[in-house]
């Protein structure tokens, strides 16, 4: 155990101190900081001059009714920031000057109504386009005004409100509709569809994919370089290959954790900054709704899945003699992790599909698909246990196999051996 600690410490220390690690970590942290600030910057630039920036004019050509309805609708919006001004200009030129004088974002022209139809509307602005935030407000405002215009008082306000409310399509299972299964209480079921759940699953999957890929490659190239520099021959006569392999895997895992930790802290600090907090609030996210059970299961699957991949990467690294050949050799593993990632990501909206069900029991894909099923789908507890058991069993199996390959592979130099050659070598070395 003592030697395992020595291997872990050495791997960790040397990896962390490499220039490439320091630079990538800092660079990514910087990119994240910039990324988080993007909404703020956008706000900063679009909301450039505060006064009048969100003012839009309406030239209604005397159809004050419509103007009134738009104004009513807009002012009733929660958190409305758009101010409506009525423009008096008689022709386009006059309107343009007026809009510029009042520093409007643009103005809306309402053509005269013909034959009782809702009049054509046009947004006139400097750039000749409708800004997204203005569009978001004006579109429903105009639709509401149109409804009122066409019904012309024939419907009550409630009826109009009902008309504009979209139909809610509920969903339930056969069992629930038949009453054979107690309908879930409001709490957890509504939790399933909160955005935090979705984000947690998404983040965990992405995290898994990237750490499996990046640290896996790190491990493989580490092993290959040890082999090509022949340190391996000394190492393998000092420590058992299993200790060596696990030491390396755990060491690099800790490096990965450190990196993730740095990113986590970067994100947290950035989100805490006052100007970003407002932006975040705009996204309507509530971190207190973080689904802890999904997070917990996610971490277990994450760590176990990581080890499964890392051990295989170590084995692959051991059969390659030169770093240049490594890329080709790890391709199958890269494919596997890509498959795990994409099956998970593309099935986020159909977590109960057959594909998801099958792949959540396949050890290579279960770390992502199981998280998705736990977080967003319906799953029985025994399914989670079974999947975990399969994953752990496969870690033992592939750990054993990898140790054998590792032991054989590190002594085979020259061209990358085929499976058959490897088996023969194992027999020859009596491993």
């Amino acid at each position, binding site marked *: 155990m003592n030697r395992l600690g020595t291997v872990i410490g050495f791997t960790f*220390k040397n990896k962390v101190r*490499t220039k490439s690690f320091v630079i990538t970590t800092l660079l990514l942290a910087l990119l994240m900081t910039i990324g988080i600030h993007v909404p703020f910057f956008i706000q900063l630039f679009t909301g450039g001059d505060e006064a009048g920036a969100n003012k839009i004019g309406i030239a209604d050509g005397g159809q004050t009714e419509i103007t009134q309805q738009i104004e009513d609708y807009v002012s009733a919006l929660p958190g409305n920031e758009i101010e409506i001004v009525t423009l008096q200009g008689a022709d386009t030129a006059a309107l343009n000057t007026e809009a510029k004088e009042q520093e409007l974002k643009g103005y809306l022209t309402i053509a005269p109504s013909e034959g009782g139809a809702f009049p054509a509307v046009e947004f006139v602005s400097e750039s000749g386009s409708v800004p997204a935030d203005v569009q978001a407000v004006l579109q429903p405002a105009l639709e509401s005004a149109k409804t009122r215009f066409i019904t012309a008082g024939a419907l009550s306000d409630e009826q109009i409100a009902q008309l504009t409310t979209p139909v809610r399509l509920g969903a339930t299972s056969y069992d629930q509709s038949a009453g054979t299964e107690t309908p879930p209480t409001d709490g957890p079921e509504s939790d399933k569809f909160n955005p935090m759940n979705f984000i947690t699953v998404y983040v965990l999957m992405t995290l898994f994919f990237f750490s499996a890929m990046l640290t896996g490659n790190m491990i493989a190239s580490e092993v290959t370089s040890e082999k090509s520099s022949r340190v391996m021959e000394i190492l393998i*006569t000092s420590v058992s290959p299993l200790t060596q392999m696990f030491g390396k895997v755990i060491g690099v895992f800790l490096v990965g954790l450190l990196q993730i930790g740095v990113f986590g802290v970067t994100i947290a600090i950035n989100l805490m900054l006052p100007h970003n907090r407002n932006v975040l609030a705009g996204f309507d996210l509530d971190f207190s709704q973080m689904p802890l059970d999904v997070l917990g299961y996610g971490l277990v699957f994450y760590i176990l899945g990581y080890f499964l991949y890392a051990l295989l990467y170590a084995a692959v690294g051991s059969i390659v003699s030169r770093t240049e050949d490594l890329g080709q050799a790890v391709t199958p593993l890269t494919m596997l992790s890509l498959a795990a990632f994409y099956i998970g990501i593309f099935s986020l909206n159909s977590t109960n599909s057959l594909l998801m069900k099958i792949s959540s029991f396949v050890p290579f894909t279960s770390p992502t698909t199981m998280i998705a099923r736990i977080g967003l789908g319906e799953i029985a507890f025994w399914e989670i246990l079974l999947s975990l058991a399969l994953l752990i069993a496969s870690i033992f199996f592939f750990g054993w196999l990898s140790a054998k390959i590792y032991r054989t592979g590190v002594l085979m130099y020259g061209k990358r051996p085929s499976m058959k050659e490897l088996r023969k070598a194992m027999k020859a070395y009596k491993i």
Partner: protein
Amino acid sequence: MTDRLILQNVVKRYGDKTAVDRISLGVKEGEIYGLLGANGAGKTTTMRMVLGLIYPDDGTITYGGRPYGGDVQRMVGYLPEERGLYPKVKVSEQIVYLAKLRGMDGAEADKNLRYWMKKFEAEEYYDKRIEELSKGNQQKMGFIAAVVHRPQILILDEAFSGLDPVNVELLKLAVKELRDEGASILFSTHRMEHVEELCRNITILDRSKTVLQGDIREIKNGFPREQILLKTASAVEGLDAIPGVTGVEGDPNGYLLRISDESAAVPVLTAAMSQSEVRHFEVKEPTLNQIFIRSVGERNE
């Protein structure tokens, strides 16, 4: 004194090819044992089996009476033919690391490291990375890495190759020091003069088989003396006419006579003394080089 490292009838096969065929040898405490052989004779395979890198198909290897195991790993030191060190890690760090892996305490390893660095006049490399060092210095560091944990059994595969004469002397001194401290050293090389200087017992391998084994002096005595070195004040005539002499080369500063029989020595000396003043007369014993070429070469024919 009993042998510390013993190989008995060790066999290694790769598929249907036999790499090492029934080799037996024993290395005592405080002994340097020479393992000689042409390329591909099975030296490295033998060493790898001793190191536990690969397992013999047949036969046994014991270390101080014990079979291979975790505690054996700690008492073995190894300098591979192609130096094994991390190119991008500081010398001090990796050597202490390797010593720790062999069960040595970090502080003690550092002390030993400094001792050896001083000995090799290489203290300024303590904080350097291996890739910054010259090839010869890398090799010195590799040697330190192999001996820093004070191994009882030391395996040196071509320890002196690629070194300049000054450094060869330094390393030879180090090897002798370790031997005098009681280490059992298994030593492979192509350089026969090193073997003659350092080793008492040798094994010559050729194509997986042991062709010669034993004490160097006895081996030499077993081979006929075939050369006479003669230095005289003036020219000596008629040497090639003496029965048993098959060839004469050189001048009065040093005649080299090839003889088919040692009994030719006396007539040669008498002839020389009668004609001139003899300054040097030696019936040369065969060099290890000649023995090696002979025993390996003969089999190749």
